[in-house]
């Protein structure tokens, strides 16, 4: 097989863009389509966003700082076909009730076990609740299925920490892009 040099690759990409133009697309359209991360919550309350961020930060270290709550909030608010959330593979929309009920479930479990909301727990106790969800051992939280909520929220956390250009770089994984996204999500 003929391996292409990076120079050749760039030529190829330019050709691909030319084909796209022939099909009626434009670079400006691409930039608009990608949008940019929003910083204003539209679905979550501040408290819900903080709880979700803290939960996800245990699942993937750095998720809170990487904006996991904003990521999820943005794509719960946007139209379903444009959603970038992995949950779209596994359940029908709307997705907001799943997340809102799940966040309530985290606090429900926290209050049952420790008589405090999740955000007020020490890290070891927060970990114990994550562990309970991961092993289907919650005592108060039943809806949505805590193990499934763990699976989906863990994916959200992994997306923002490890699935971006920056995340690849932190893992020392070559990005090897054809078209690099302008924004992480």
């Amino acid at each position, binding site marked *: *097989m*003929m*391996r*292409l040099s990076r120079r050749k*690759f760039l030529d*190829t*990409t330019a*050709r*691909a*863009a030319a*084909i*796209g133009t*022939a*099909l*009626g*697309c*434009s*670079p400006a*359209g*691409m930039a608009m*389509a*990608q949008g940019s991360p929003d910083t204003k919550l539209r679905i979550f309350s501040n408290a819900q966003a903080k709880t979700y961020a803290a939960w996800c930060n*245990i*699942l*993937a*270290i750095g998720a809170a700082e990487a904006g996991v709550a904003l990521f999820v909030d943005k794509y719960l608010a946007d139209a379903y*076909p*444009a*959603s*970038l*959330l*992995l949950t*779209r*593979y*596994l359940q*029908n*929309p709307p997705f907001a009730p799943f997340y809102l009920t799940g966040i309530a479930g985290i606090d429900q479990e926290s209050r049952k076990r420790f008589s405090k909301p999740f955000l007020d727990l020490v890290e070891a106790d927060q970990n114990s609740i*994550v562990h309970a969800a*991961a092993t289907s051992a919650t005592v108060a939280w039943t809806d949505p299925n805590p193990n499934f909520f763990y*699976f989906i929220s*863990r*994916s959200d956390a*992994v*997306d923002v920490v*490890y*699935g971006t250009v920056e*995340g*690849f770089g932190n*893992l*020392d*994984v*070559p990005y*090897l*892009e*054809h*078209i*690099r*996204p302008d924004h*992480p*999500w």
Partner: protein
Amino acid sequence: MQTIQENPVEVLVLGSGFAGSTMTAHLAAAGFDVLTLEAGPERKLQDMLSSQIWARRLKWGGPPVVEKGDLTGAAGFGMGWGTGGAALHWYANWYRFHQNDFRERTLYGKGLDWPIEYEDLRPYYDRAQNYVGVSGDLAQDPWSPPAADYPMPALPELAQSRAIKKGFDALGLRSAPNPVAINSQRYQDRTGCLLDGWCDAGCPIGALANPLVLQWPNALSAGAELKHNAYATRVTTAPSGKKATGVEYRDAAGDLHIQPAQIVIIACHTIWNSRLLLLSANGAHPDGLANGSGKVGRHFMSHPIVTIYGLFDQETEPYRGILGANILSQENYDDKQPAKGVFGSRSFQGGQASKPNDLLGWALARPDLYGQALDDYLRTARRHFGNMTVLCEETSVPENRIELDTTKTDAFGLPAAKVTNNIPKENAARLDLAKTEGLKIFQAADTSDVWASPRNPEHMLGGTLMGSDPNRSVTNSYGQTHEVDNLFIAGASLFPTSGAVNPTGTLTALVLRSADYIQKNRAALLR
């Protein structure tokens, strides 16, 4: 909302994915006046961002699918939405069904027979691989049925495949380069693959055969028209019910369009082919269009799979390569009854590139890990991860089906699709056996850790079966419905059996055969 009467066309194709676009390109080239309707939005090459996160926009974004049973969950991940459909994010694994896949009822008393045999389809497989551009090495493939050489040499064996191959070799099992619809070198003005591992985010350079670089440029230059955001809600017929008159569809504003056509071809992907026929019930077809047999929606199938994972001693560069397989083994594929109570073929598809995130990524391969343990694992996986899909067969049974579900509706109040799929016991036993084999293969390679995923479904097949008997099938072998002469179906929904291989090579061969038939019968069909 308005009702808009459109100008008639000769051929109306519903769906712009691999089946629909291939059909459109070939009929337009043959001189037909062809219009294709795509329910989703326009997709462009620039939409194919190298990101597992952004790539999710290419996946299903249409009406809900209600799924029931123990082998479901493929719909949201497997289907597409917009130009090119699922073929914008497919992995390009390219296979032929084996001879015995076509004759399971006769040979084993299981499932169904096809109305054609391998030799009937062989020339179309040969044409299809040249049209699409397939890389492979037939000389190294001891399992392929008789076939023409692939038009391109195989992709190179990558580090991950070399690591996995040790396991096959240690157990005395043969393996071969996996055939894929990806260019190993420049082919028909499309470039060779860079092996960057972003196939399911779309391939903007066009090395992977996808409708934006292959079928649509061909079709549009031949005069075909493609409309987006055109959501078909009903195929209409003459009062006799024996002739389709066209299609009703809704645009993005909700306006109703009446589109007359002399030939209608439904190519909307498996679930939606059946749903549209069921939605099109009328006085002459009270149980759904072309459903006098009661078979529309019946015999739904998927491929039961498990994924074998391993951490190899040697470096595997798992982020490089293609998302389809790089190494294949079909040892004993043709032995569909390897043990008592076990039925079906199986394929091993190894060395698939992957990234840290998304459904097939390194992180979700170990869903039990989180926090520091997850980070530690990922830093090992980035250098030593390997995977292999163990793909098995699901026998065609009538109980597995697609129906309308009035408890959920689309934006226009029409019933959603409901899919029920339960894996037959003998197929579940086959998968268990194959999983054990797969684990042994990885254990025989130099690995420090080997594990397997839970059972999952892959691909969606059946529901509008082809067959010889109008009382037991929906279409003939050309996809022409038994009851409505000018109504055709295209896609894997026609398959009477699933085999244990990915379906796109076979569905493309069937499309070419149907297109030839339509061309040869042009005068009668356009009457």
